[in-house]
């Protein structure tokens, strides 16, 4: 190779390949582009707004209108009552004038005194009637007023006739008209007084009715709004419980309109997205940790082929002159074979370590389990642990991500290895009958089992029974998170002294046609 050529090789600016850590750091620090609204968020936003504030404002407006109505009505009633009282005064005056007129008329007839005074009083009454004609019309009706006016006119005429002609017939007529007039005036006053009393009575009852209506309306409103708030709250409580168990699917619109809770839903969606992102980072980080464990085992396993290579190669070098060609070829074949073996060991590890996007696809569980067992083979061998795999070849494919599932199985197997004494036993079996639509993978060990008082905590993050510095306490927490994310369940059964069984329930894929794609 010439120097020029070498230079040519290196001149293009070497772009550093994004390493594991770099990608992780980018994921952590760069975050997701939050300016792009999520489709679910958009669905939440693209609804008409009927906020609780609006609903409360509407309710208060209703109350206000009701109160306003009642007040206006009361003012009107009071106004009417006032008018009636004023009219009553007029009617009283009217009646008084007429009574005076009758008194003078009687005096005239008895003592022959001045009749002018009577006439004057009648005219006065007439003037009152004329001045308050409008009110009179309202109270008595047109007919009544006309009759009254006719009576008045006739009475006045009769009085003036009476001054000249004091015949008995005339006297009789004057007395009749005067009596009728007085009765009419009396009736007017009585009627008006009764009306006023009725109205005042009504005005006294109305506030009570109004209060009752207000109360019933208030109760209804509180019940209605309360029910809406409580129903929404319990819906959100459901969401938080869902999030707590690791289901990070976003909240979708449940109503046709938007309110304050929609903002909360948006905030929650943002939170779950962040949680999801951190969960992914956590899973990735935990994988690195798990790899640390694996690497120790794998490094040891590598020592065997390396030892073979080293021995054979050193022998090859030392004995080179004495070896015949066949022997040399044999030794080289050994070296190549052992290198291949070493490469295979490393490749398994790298396969597991490779960072990749979560890819949900139909998977053949058996193959994944076999690869996992291969990876942890050393840890098993060093502790002489017997691993039985009772998995039939024909299993329904499950829905999941190859690497994530491998991580889960590895966590569970390595946990079992950690608790098992030498020559312990691990049995991996499958069961399709545990739950409809799910394939259960049971990983059973005959170790010491899990005491009941910690059984509830083992899936909690940072809970660990391992000595300080040996476990992160995240393995089971992360595993459960992964399984929940894949739509499955992870639980444990244990009897003290008899070992423990971890069951991974994975959803069986409903599209069997594409099984082959994921399997290999």
């Amino acid at each position, binding site marked *: 190779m010439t120097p020029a050529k070498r230079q040519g090789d290196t001149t293009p600016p070497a772009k550093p390949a994004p390493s594991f850590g770099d990608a992780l750091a980018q994921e952590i620090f760069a975050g997701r582009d939050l300016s792009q609204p999520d489709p679910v968020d958009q669905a939440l936003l693209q609804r008409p707004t009927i906020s609780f504030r609006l609903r409360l404002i509407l309710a208060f407006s209703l109350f206000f209108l009701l109160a306003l109505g009642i007040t206006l009505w009361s003012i009107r009633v009071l106004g009417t009552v006032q008018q009636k009282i004023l009219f009553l005064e007029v009617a009283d005056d009217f009646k008084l004038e007429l009574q005076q007129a009758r008194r003078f008329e009687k005096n005239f007839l008895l003592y022959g005194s001045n009749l002018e005074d009577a006439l004057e009083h009648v005219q006065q009454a007439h003037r009152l009637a004329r001045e308050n004609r409008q009110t009179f019309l309202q109270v008595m009706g047109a007919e009544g007023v006309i009759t009254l006016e006719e009576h008045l006119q006739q009475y006045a005429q009769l009085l003036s006739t009476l001054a000249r002609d004091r015949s008995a017939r005339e006297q009789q007529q004057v007395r009749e008209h005067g009596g009728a007039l007085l009765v009419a005036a009396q009736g007017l006053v009585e009627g008006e007084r009764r009306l006023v009393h009725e109205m005042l009575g009504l005005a006294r009852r109305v506030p009570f009715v109004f209060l009752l209506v207000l109360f019933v309306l208030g109760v209804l409103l509180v019940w209605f709004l309360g029910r809406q708030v409580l129903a929404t709250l319990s819906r959100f409580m459901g969401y938080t419980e869902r999030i707590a168990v690791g289901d990070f699917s976003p909240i979708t619109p449940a109503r046709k309109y938007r309110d304050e809770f929609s903002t909360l839903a948006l905030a929650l969606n943002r939170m779950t997205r962040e949680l999801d992102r951190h969960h992914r980072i956590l899973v990735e980080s935990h994988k690195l940790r798990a790899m640390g464990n694996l690497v120790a085992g794998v490094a040891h396993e590598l020592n*065997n082929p*390396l*030892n*073979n290579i*080293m*021995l*054979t190669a*050193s022998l090859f070098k030392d*004995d080179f002159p004495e070896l015949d060609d066949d022997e040399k070829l044999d030794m080289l074949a050994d070296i190549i074979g052992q290198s291949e073996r070493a490469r295979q060991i490393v490749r398994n590890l790298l396969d597991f370590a490779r960072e990749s996007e979560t890819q949900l696809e139909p998977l053949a569980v058996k193959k994944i389990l076999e690869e996992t067992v291969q990876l942890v083979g050393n840890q098993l061998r060093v502790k*002489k642990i017997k691993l039985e795999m009772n998995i039939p070849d024909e299993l329904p494919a499950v829905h999941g991500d190859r690497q994530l599932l491998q991580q889960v199985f590895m966590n569970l197997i390595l946990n079992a290895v950690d608790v098992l004494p030498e020559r312990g036993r691990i049995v991996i079996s499958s069961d399709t009958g545990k739950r409809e639509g799910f394939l259960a993978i049971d990983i059973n060990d005959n170790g010491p089992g899990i005491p009941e008082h910690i059984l509830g905590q083992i899936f909690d993050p940072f809970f660990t029974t391992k000595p300080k510095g040996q476990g992160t306490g995240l393995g089971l927490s992360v595993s459960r998170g992964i399984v929940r994310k894949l739509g499955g369940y992870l639980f444990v059964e244990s009897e003290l002294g008899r070992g423990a069984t971890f069951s991974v329930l994975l959803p069986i894929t409903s599209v069997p046609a594409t099984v082959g794609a994921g399997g290999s």
Partner: protein
Amino acid sequence: MTEQEGKIKVMVLDDEHIAVKTLQRVLGKAGYQVEAFEDPHQALARLEETCFDIVVTDVVMGDIDGIQVLNKVRQVCPQTRVIIITAFAMMEMARKAMEKGAFDFVAKPFDAQAIREVVDRAARQD
């Protein structure tokens, strides 16, 4: 293989075929009389029959491990020097092996010269 009196008898036990083959050759060339085994059960049976001067054994070999072989050797031929070789070397394992009376504890991988030196050292300490 010709039996020769006066040669130091060495047993090599490892479940790795190539390791056994190569060790046999390396030690054989160094003047030892080597018997090689890949199955620890056969090796244990052979130990019942005869005493070796030196036993070189792997640790992790299926259901029987090198420490058991070491115990057996100490039991039947206390003067035999046992060299433990392992791919899974750890501090505690080394201490345990030495406590049980091993002559040396060697971590894989090693080259021909290294193992030859260890066996030579064991052979000299008669």
